[in-house]
C-alpha cells in the first residue's frame, strides 16, 4: 500500500513540475512556432465554408492581421461551449469568431480592443412582424433564446418580456429553428448571426427581423489567453488596418460596414 501511495505521489509531482515548466511569454510562444491557431465556429458572415473554402469577414480579417504580425493563420473549428478550455490547454491560441465582450470574459481572458458593434434582435415569422408592440401584447407569447446568451439576459431583464413565456435552448440555431417550426413565436438572437441564417436563399426565408426592436448593444473582441502579451500586438495591427482602410473595405464586402467601431 505504501509503495502504491509513494508511486501516486511521485506521478503527481512529475505532472505538476511539468506543468510549471512552461516558460516564456505568450507572444514568444506563438511567434516561436510561427503560426497562430485561430478558434472558430462556422457561421455566416464571419467564418464559413464556400465551395469547401473557408471565407468570411473574420477569416479575412484574421489573415490580414497575421500577415502584419508575420505568423501563419491556422483555423481550427471548435465547439463554442468549450472555447475557454481550448484556449487554456493551448489547442488554440485565440478565439476570433464574433465574440461578444462581457465582464466575465474580460476576467477570464485577455481581450482585444472592440472592433465591431452588434445588438440583439427579435426574429419572428414574416407575417408576424409588427404583431407584438408592448409588454401587454407579449403576454403568454412563447419566446426562446440561447441559454446564457445576451438574448437570454435581454428577455430576463427587459420589462417588455415580463409576461412572455421564456424557454432556454442550446444554441441560436435551435432558437431560430423553434420559431420556424412554430414551437416558439419569437426568439431573441444576435443580429450578426441572423444575417447569414434567415431570409432569401435559406430554409428560413419566411422569417424576418422585427425592425421595431433592438436590444443590448454589444461589441466584438478577439480573445487570447489570460495575461497574454500578444493582445497588444494584435491591437496595434488592427489599428494599422483601420488606418489604411482595409478593415472598412472588408466590412463592406460582407455587408457589415455599418457595424464597425468607428472611433
Amino acid at each position, binding site marked *: 500500500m505504501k509503495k502504491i501511495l509513494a508511486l501516486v505521489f511521485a506521478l503527481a509531482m512529475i505532472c505538476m513540475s511539468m506543468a510549471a515548466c512552461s516558460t516564456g511569454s505568450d507572444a514568444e510562444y506563438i511567434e516561436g512556432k510561427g503560426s497562430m491557431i485561430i478558434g472558430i465556429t462556422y457561421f455566416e458572415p464571419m467564418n464559413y465554408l464556400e465551395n469547401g473554402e473557408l471565407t468570411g469577414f473574420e477569416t479575412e480579417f484574421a489573415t490580414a492581421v497575421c500577415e502584419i504580425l508575420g505568423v501563419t493563420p491556422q483555423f481550427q473549428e471548435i465547439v463554442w461551449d468549450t472555447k475557454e478550455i481550448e484556449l487554456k*490547454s493551448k489547442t488554440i491560441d485565440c478565439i476570433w469568431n464574433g465574440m461578444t465582450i462581457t465582464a466575465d470574459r474580460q476576467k477570464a481572458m485577455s481581450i482585444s480592443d472592440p472592433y465591431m458593434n452588434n445588438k440583439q434582435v427579435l426574429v419572428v415569422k414574416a407575417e408576424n412582424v409588427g404583431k407584438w408592440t408592448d409588454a401587454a401584447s407579449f403576454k403568454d407569447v412563447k419566446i426562446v433564446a440561447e441559454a446564457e446568451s445576451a438574448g437570454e439576459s435581454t428577455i430576463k431583464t427587459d420589462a417588455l418580456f415580463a409576461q412572455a413565456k421564456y424557454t432556454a435552448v442550446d444554441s441560436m440555431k435551435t432558437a431560430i429553428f423553434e420559431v420556424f417550426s412554430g414551437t416558439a413565436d419569437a426568439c431573441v438572437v444576435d443580429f450578426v448571426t441572423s444575417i447569414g441564417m434567415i431570409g432569401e436563399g435559406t430554409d428560413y426565408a419566411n422569417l424576418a427581423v422585427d425592425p421595431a426592436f433592438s436590444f443590448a448593444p454589444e461589441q466584438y473582441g478577439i480573445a487570447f489567453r489570460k495575461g497574454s502579451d500578444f493582445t497588444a500586438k494584435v491591437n496595434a495591427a488592427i489599428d494599422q488596418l483601420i488606418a489604411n482602410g482595409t478593415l472598412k473595405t472588408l466590412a463592406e464586402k460582407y455587408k457589415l460596414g455599418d457595424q464597425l467601431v468607428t472611433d
Partner: protein
Amino acid sequence: MDKIMTLLEGFGLNTAIFFCTLLGALPLGLAIMFCTRSSNKIIATIFRGIVWVVRGTPLMLQLIAVFYLPSLIFEWAMPRTVAAIVAFIINYACYFSEIFRGGLDAIPVGQYEAGQVLGLTRTQVFFKVILMQVVKRIVAPMGNEIITLIKDTSLANIIAVPELIMVSKRFLAKGILWPFFSTAIFFLVFTGITTLVLNRCEKKLNYYKL
C-alpha cells in the same frame, strides 16, 4: 450534390472511429477481463476500479478529459480524431470486458473437469472446448454494444471532430435544414448492414448450440 459529399466525408470519420474502436476495444476488453479475474488481488481491484469509473461516468466527459487533460497538464495534445478513438476504445473495452466475463462465467465447471479427466491441459480446454461456446453466447449482447457504438461515434463532435453531425450542423448555421435531418439515413443504413452481418454470424455459430 457537394453537400452530400461533405456529409459523406463526415460519415467517413464516423466509420473510421467505429472500426478503430472495434479493433482496439476487442483485445483490450479481453485483457481487462482477465485482469479483473486475476488471482492477484491488487491487480483485480485496480482493474475493477477502472471498469467502475469508466462505466460510471458519461462518455461525453471522458472524451473531453482524454483530449483536454493531457494538454492542460503536460501541454501535449493528441490530434482530435485520435483522442476520440482512444476515449472510445477505453470506454468500450470496459463494457466488452463485462460481456466477456458473463460469457465465460456461463460455462459450467463440469466441462473443465471433463477436459481434465480426458487428459487435456488447461490451455487446450480453453481453446478447444470453451472459447467457441463463449463466442456463441456473447454474440447477441456484443451486437447490442456494437450498434450502440455506431451511434455513439457522433459524440466525437464534442471535441470538434468534424464527423457527420458536426458537419451537418454547419449547414444548420447557414439556415439549411435537410442535411441535419438526413444524417439519420446514414446511421440507419450502417446499423442495417451491421445487423445483417451480426445475424449471419449468429446463424453460423448455431453449430455450437448447447
